[in-house]
């Protein structure tokens, strides 16, 4: 029974296992089926893709074939032996050979016989080098003998073992381009030839600075043969060390594509130097890539020599001019000094008792000396103007008065020639104008003088008018008309030129004069912003017109002028005066001494500035006459020393400068040094007298030695009691105390001024002035206080200037005067 059970169980297990197995197999089968279906789908898909690709390929093959067949470029295939397997129609056309005949032909058969060997050799070289891409240009010949240049690009295909498989070629007909290039090359050659013929040397270098080509012209210039230069470095061959770096800079510029021109010295083969003007420009190939540069050389050695000669000539001329200037300056001094003496002595001589014969001689000497003096003055004036050393010095001028005076003076002369001199002044002409008085006088004097000189028994008329310009300037228009001999037309253009008188020697002989008068007038008028013209007819007369550009005077300034003009007239008693004459020239000493003696004045003589200082320390003089140019110590220096030394009894004495030139500069220098007036040598006794009178009568004091002219603000005449009252509230004791205190400190304060002037310390001066003006105001000198205050403000802002010296010195005087007045005041208080 249990055996049966066992068996049953076994069978049952076997059945269950079988069923499981069957089920597994069933599942596997199903899985397999599915896989199979999927596989089939995949297969179909793949087949479809392959079909599509094939179709596409066919289409593109067709397209490519169309392209190739219709291409304008030649497209061909060569097999490994170099025989055509395909040539597109464009190729067939160029070769003039139909495809079926071409196929199988070796490519060399279509080459131009001239190039055949070389191209075949190149072909083999390429293949041996296993190159894959080749660019070639060569000509082919068609069946009917036409030659076509082809630019080719060959693609060489090798198999895996590196064996040549086939070659595809694309070629383009470049015959036309080559023809054009050829034409360009020929025209370039032509231009280079032209340049060569123009004596220009061409040199072409590559980017490594090696000569690639040198043209004949260049070789000729440098003495080399063409072959000697190829491959050489032009810098080391032609240039000196110092020029190389200069050249490198030029080359750097050229590399940037800049054209440039420069000059450099180059070594000739023979060793001498050649100056070259070089223009360099980059050379570019067809693609615009810089392949080198081209230098165009031009031999400028000749020009360089000329240039050097010119520079030398100019220097020589400049030197000569300078020498002339120095000569003139020297001459001025050398001639004027004795001449002044001659003129002076003649003046003295004519004052003595002379017999008629002697009188004539003296007049002749005087005339000759005057002419000589005029000539020298003119030459010097002209050279000063030309050297630009003349400056305008405008001041207020009374036009009417000037003309009246001028005509009055010239009337005498005019009458000598039996001439009538008249003047007309336009209604609009103002009384006062701001212009250079000297220029106006000089030009008038000259033109009127000329008119008188060249007119006999005729009329000379002066016309004046003015015109206001838009910019506010006032043009003074002057016309001088004479009825004289006139000027020939041919001479008119030269009349204002130097050393060209109307008819040269004759005029000079007959009428005298230097011939410089008109040129000087022209220069002066031009300096004054105007111009001068002449119209003339021989035997009828001449008309000179000139204009000066001035300004209208404003009302304020006109008042000042009249005040200044009103100083003359006061008489000075010369017999009580003692002068110090400072003069180094014997004749001048004698001249001045004798004039003073005639006026019964006393005088002392100093031979130079140093002596003058010494003498001035010991004795008080009423006035000092000081020459400027002297040995040992000149007049400027002496004046400064005398003015600066407050213990010197003459430190406030008037000093008149005696100078040889009328130049503004000298005048300014003299005034800056502390002088009061300026007199140009030679001077007449009257001129000297007038100058002395002006100086001594200014203050109106009886004791002139203690008085020098001072600006109004500095003239302390009397202490203003009202001011003292105002400040001290009527407390006179207190006021007196303050005044005495001021008087005590005054000497040290004045020393302060001296020190400040010497140190030229404008800040310190400003501080000092600041402390000074309130005190001065309290002590009854409001004008002086105001002047100090005003000055203090400007000093504060400005650097030290020389007019501060003069101002400070005047202030010193004013303070000293104030001291005197205060002393008087104190005395009055005591009383």
């Amino acid at each position, binding site marked *: 029974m249990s055996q049966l059970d066992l068996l049953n169980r076994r069978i049952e*297990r076997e059945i269950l296992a079988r069923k*499981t*197995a069957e089920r*597994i197999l069933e599942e596997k089968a199903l899985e397999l089926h599915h896989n199979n279906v999927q596989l089939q789908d995949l297969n179909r898909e793949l087949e479809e893709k392959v079909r599509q690709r094939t179709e596409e390929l066919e289409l593109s093959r067709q397209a490519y074939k169309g392209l190739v067949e219709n291409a304008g470029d030649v497209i061909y295939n060569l097999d490994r032996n170099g025989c055509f397997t395909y040539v597109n129609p464009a190729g067939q056309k160029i070769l003039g050979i139909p495809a079926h005949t071409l196929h199988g032909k070796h490519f060399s058969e279509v080459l131009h016989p001239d190039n055949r060997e070389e191209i075949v050799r190149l072909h083999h070289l390429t293949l041996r080098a296993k190159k894959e891409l080749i660019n070639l240009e060569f000509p082919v010949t068609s069946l009917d003998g036409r030659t076509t240049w082809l630019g080719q690009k060959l693609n060489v295909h090798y198999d895996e073992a590196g064996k040549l498989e086939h070659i595809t070629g694309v070629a383009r007909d470049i015959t036309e381009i080559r023809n054009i290039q050829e034409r360009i090359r020929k025209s370039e050659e032509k231009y280079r030839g032209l340049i060569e013929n123009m004596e220009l040397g061409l040199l072409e270098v590559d980017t490594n600075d090696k000569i690639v080509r040198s043209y004949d012209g260049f070789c000729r210039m440098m003495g080399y043969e063409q072959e000697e230069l190829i491959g050489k470095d032009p810098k080391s061959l032609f240039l000196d060390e110092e020029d190389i770096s200069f050249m490198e800079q030029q080359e750097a510029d050229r590399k940037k594509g800049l054209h440039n021109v420069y000059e450099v010295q180059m070594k000739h083969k023979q060793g001498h130097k050649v100056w070259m003007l070089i223009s360099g420009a980059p050379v570019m190939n067809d693609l615009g890539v810089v392949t080198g540069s081209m230098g165009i050389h031009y031999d400028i050695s000749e020009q360089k020599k000329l240039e050097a000669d010119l520079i030398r000539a100019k220097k020589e001329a400049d030197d000569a001019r300078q020498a002339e200037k120095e000569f003139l300056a020297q001459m001025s001094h050398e001639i004027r000094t004795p001449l002044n003496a001659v003129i002076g002595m003649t003046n003295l001589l004519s004052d003595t008792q002379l017999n008629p014969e002697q009188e004539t001689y003296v007049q002749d000497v005087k005339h000759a000396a005057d002419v000589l003096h005029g000539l020298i003055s003119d030459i010097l004036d002209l050279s000063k103007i030309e050297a630009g050393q003349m400056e305008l010095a405008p001041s207020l001028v009374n036009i009417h008065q000037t003309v009246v005076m001028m005509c009055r003076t010239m009337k005498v002369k005019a009458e000598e020639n039996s001439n009538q001199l008249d003047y007309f002044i336009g209604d609009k002409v103002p009384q006062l104008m701001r212009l250079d008085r000297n220029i106006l006088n000089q030009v008038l004097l000259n033109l009127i003088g000329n008119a008188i000189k060249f007119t006999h028994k005729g009329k000379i008329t002066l016309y004046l008018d003015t015109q206001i310009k838009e910019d506010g300037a006032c043009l003074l228009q002057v016309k001088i008309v004479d009825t004289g001999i006139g000027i020939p037309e041919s001479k008119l253009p030269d009349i204002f030129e130097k050393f060209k008188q109307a008819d040269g020697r004759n005029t000079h002989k007959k009428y005298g004069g230097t011939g410089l008068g008109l040129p000087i007038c022209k220069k002066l008028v031009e300096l004054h912003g105007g111009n001068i013209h002449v119209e003339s007819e021989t035997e009828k007369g001449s008309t000179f017109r000139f204009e000066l550009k001035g300004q209208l005077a404003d009302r304020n300034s006109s008042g000042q002028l009249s005040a200044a003009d009103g100083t003359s007239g006061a008489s000075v008693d010369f017999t009580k005066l003692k002068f110090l004459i400072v003069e180094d020239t014997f004749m001048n000493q004698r001249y001045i001494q004798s004039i003073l003696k005639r006026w019964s004045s006393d005088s002392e003589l100093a031979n130079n500035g140093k002596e003058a200082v010494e003498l001035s320390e010991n004795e008080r003089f009423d006035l000092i006459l000081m020459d400027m140019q002297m040995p040992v110590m000149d007049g400027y220096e002496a004046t400064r020393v005398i003015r600066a030394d407050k213990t010197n009894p003459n430190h406030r004495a008037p000093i008149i400068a005696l100078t040889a030139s009328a130049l503004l500069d000298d005048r300014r220098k003299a005034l800056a040094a502390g002088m009061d007036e300026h007199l140009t040598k030679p001077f007449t006794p009257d001129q000297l007298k007038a100058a002395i009178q002006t100086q001594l009568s200014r203050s109106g004091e009886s004791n002139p030695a203690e008085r020098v002219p001072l600006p109004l603000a500095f003239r302390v005449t009397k202490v203003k009691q009202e001011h003292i009252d105002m400040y001290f509230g009527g407390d006179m004791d207190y006021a007196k105390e303050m005044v005495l205190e001021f008087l005590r400190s005054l000497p040290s304060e004045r020393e302060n001024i001296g020190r400040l002037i010497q140190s030229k310390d404008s800040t310190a001066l400003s501080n000092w002035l600041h402390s000074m003006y309130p005190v001065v105001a309290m002590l009854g000198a409001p004008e002086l206080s105001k002047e100090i205050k005003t000055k203090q403000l400007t000093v504060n802002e400005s650097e030290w200037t020389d007019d501060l010296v003069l101002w400070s010195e005047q202030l010193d005087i004013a303070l000293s005067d104030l001291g005197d007045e205060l002393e008087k005041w104190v005395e009055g208080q005591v009383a």
Partner: protein
Amino acid sequence: MKGVVFTEFFELIEELHDYEMVDRVIQESNVESGGNYTSIGSYDFQELVKLLITYSNISGNSIDEALRLFGHKLLKTFRSGYAAFFEPYDNARDFLKTVDNYIHVEVYKLYPDAELPSIRVEDVDDNSFRLIYSSSRALGHLAFGLIEATFELYKEEYTIEMKSTSEKGDEVTFLCKRI
């Protein structure tokens, strides 16, 4: 574990004893699948472990001994079923070298769910080599039986020194020396 291992194991028990023994092992093991295995199916490895323990308890044979005998049994089966794997070689060492990188690879291709060990063969010298077995199932004694049977098959005499190199027995080294 592949069903063939189970069916072969039952065949071995029947050979050593009788079907009654097989029946008892199945019934007493009380395995989930019910014990009706088919060689082409796949079953839980734990069922084989249960069956081995039950057999060992009833028969008194150790599990290790049973596995060793099972190795002999399996190799015979493989020899008759897959002769082509054995024929190219005339010695055990060369054949064993192919198990890991060829035979089991082929098995795996056929049954992607097969659980196979790693069998590495290292030459020591001409007469000896080392076989390193490693598997999470720790059936070192089955491998032992398979190796013994292989030597017998190629009629070669080797001593086999078995040494566990890990506590769990998942890595075992067999040093084989020719006698």
